[in-house]
């Protein structure tokens, strides 16, 4: 049995390595490139097969590749994700061995993953037999430098970001309630996104390093300068990364923000 990270099947959200069509050893540069290629493929299908499938399907796909990219581009999240896949592989192999004897289906579903975790979470380091080449640490193949970032710096960026996101939870809630007091509902546009980012004291530069998206594009999102984007797919793709990095409610923002984009396109036509 040679289940590896990239060919392990992950039922619900799919295997991120498969989604981006990259090996589990892919470097950050390769991940970034694969994400761009997937955006292009989604864009091409959205145009060339227009009207043949529901538009939500495109959005679903965008969210999926966005999630895959955001997770794999984050060294901490990636190590955790790799770990989860290994657990799935291990548990599958275990069930294979115990096919007949183990009444696994009888154990409550909620407990099952936890149980396995305690059994297998520690060994991987010493687990020479099953995964001799894979290690729990951040994959070595990720280049030490991505646009001037070392792996350690990159981890620091994420740790800083996590702290900022966490510490500002309350003030963001306050900000929302102030907005609600003014106009009823919070509706997300470029200016609101910018204010949230500033409340979190995250700079554009910082966000650019995290998302691997140039700050001019991130700025264009905040300024609603849609001309900067060659297609709706790219705008959405980058927006998803922006939202994910700042831990904001994805679905609502995408819907409201893309409506702004669509209205502008309509207005230009009419």
């Amino acid at each position: 049995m040679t289940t590896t990270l990239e060919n392990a099947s992950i039922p619900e959200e799919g295997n991120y390595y498969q989604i981006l069509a990259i090996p589990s050893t892919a470097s950050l540069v390769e991940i970034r490139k694969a994400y761009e290629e997937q955006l292009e493929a989604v864009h091409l299908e959205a145009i060339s097969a227009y009207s043949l499938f529901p538009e939500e399907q495109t959005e679903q796909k965008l969210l999926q590749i966005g999630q895959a990219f955001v997770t794999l581009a984050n060294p901490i999240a990636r190590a955790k994700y790799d770990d989860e896949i290994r657990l799935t592989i291990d548990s599958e192999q275990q069930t294979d061995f115990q096919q007949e004897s183990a009444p696994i289906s009888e154990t409550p579903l909620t407990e099952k993953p936890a149980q396995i975790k305690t059994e297998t979470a520690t060994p991987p380091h010493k687990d020479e037999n099953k995964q001799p080449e894979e290690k729990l640490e951040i994959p070595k193949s990720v280049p030490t430098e991505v646009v001037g970032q070392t792996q350690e710096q990159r981890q620091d960026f994420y740790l800083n970001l996590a702290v900022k996101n966490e510490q500002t939870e309350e003030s963001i809630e306050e900000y929302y309630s102030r907005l609600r007091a003014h106009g009823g509902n919070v509706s997300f546009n470029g200016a609101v996104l910018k204010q949230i980012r500033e409340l979190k004291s995250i700079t554009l530069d910082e966000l650019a390093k995290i998302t691997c998206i140039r700050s001019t594009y991130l700025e264009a999102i905040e300024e609603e300068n849609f001309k900067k984007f060659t297609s709706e797919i790219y705008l959405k793709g980058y927006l998803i990364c922006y939202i994910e990095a700042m831990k904001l409610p994805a679905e609502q923002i995408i819907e409201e923000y893309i409506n702004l984009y669509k209205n502008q396109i309509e207005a230009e036509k009419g």
Partner: protein
Amino acid sequence: MATKNIWAIGGGKGGVGKSFVAGNLGILLAQSGYKVILADLDLGGANLHTWLGVNSPPKSLSDFIGREILNISKLLIPTEIPGLSLISGAKDGVEIANLKYTQKRRFLSALRNLDADYIVIDLGAGTSYNTVDFFLLADSQLMVVIPEPTSIENAYRFIKNSFFRQIFHNSKNFRLKSVVTPILRKDNPYKVNTPKELIDYLNKLGGKSTIFVEEQLQIFRPKIILNQVRTERDKKVGRAMKTACSKYFNLDMTFLGYISEDESVWKSVLDRKPIAVSHPDCVPMQQLKTICSDILQEETESAAKNNLLSQLTL
């Protein structure tokens, strides 16, 4: 006399360059030494005569349909291009838009009997029975599409309606006809939108009609020309449409190639001179030449096989 070939150019949306492609293909064929008749069947919007710089026709198609003229050759208008003449629906009133299927067949067989090697039909926009039926009766079924969602949506609607209409005409199975007829209308009670879904639906019903539908898919071969291509990204849309057709329609569509957007095209329209004459060496014309010779080659290849469609329809 050698067998005539009818090329029909459709595609659903207006303004995508159907007349541009039809007219210039006609000229290219004539310049290669063939005798060509260009038939402007954009009923209600025919204007190839202006484009070719000839006067509007003295007699109309309705005169032939109404049997006031029995010899269709009286409708031929000579053009400045040697070997090319025009039949135009320009003089016709609105009633011409509602031709019966038998009238269309009579008209097309009359066209086939004319002294010509190629008949190139410029169809109108839309997916009405008129356009779709002429499209289906042709030997080479060409569609012009531009890389924009509206055009692509219409193209798929055109493909779908043409295919279901073809099944309706070719099937002798009353039950199958009764399934296809409502699909062609707006209500679509069976939620069937593609040939693939039709096959799935028929499979559920049981019986042999799925085999028939699959055979019909084999002989339905629309070919796509991608027009007004601006960017590298646009170029990829043609192949991607081919992939989408096989994925969603189970249909092996031929992608003939793309034509770049070029200002010589609109200049030639303003000059009221066909681009094949005014700018014969511009990029779009060179691309169209390649497309033209590809169609000719494919025809020679498939001429060896039986052309099932024309056997069934004439």
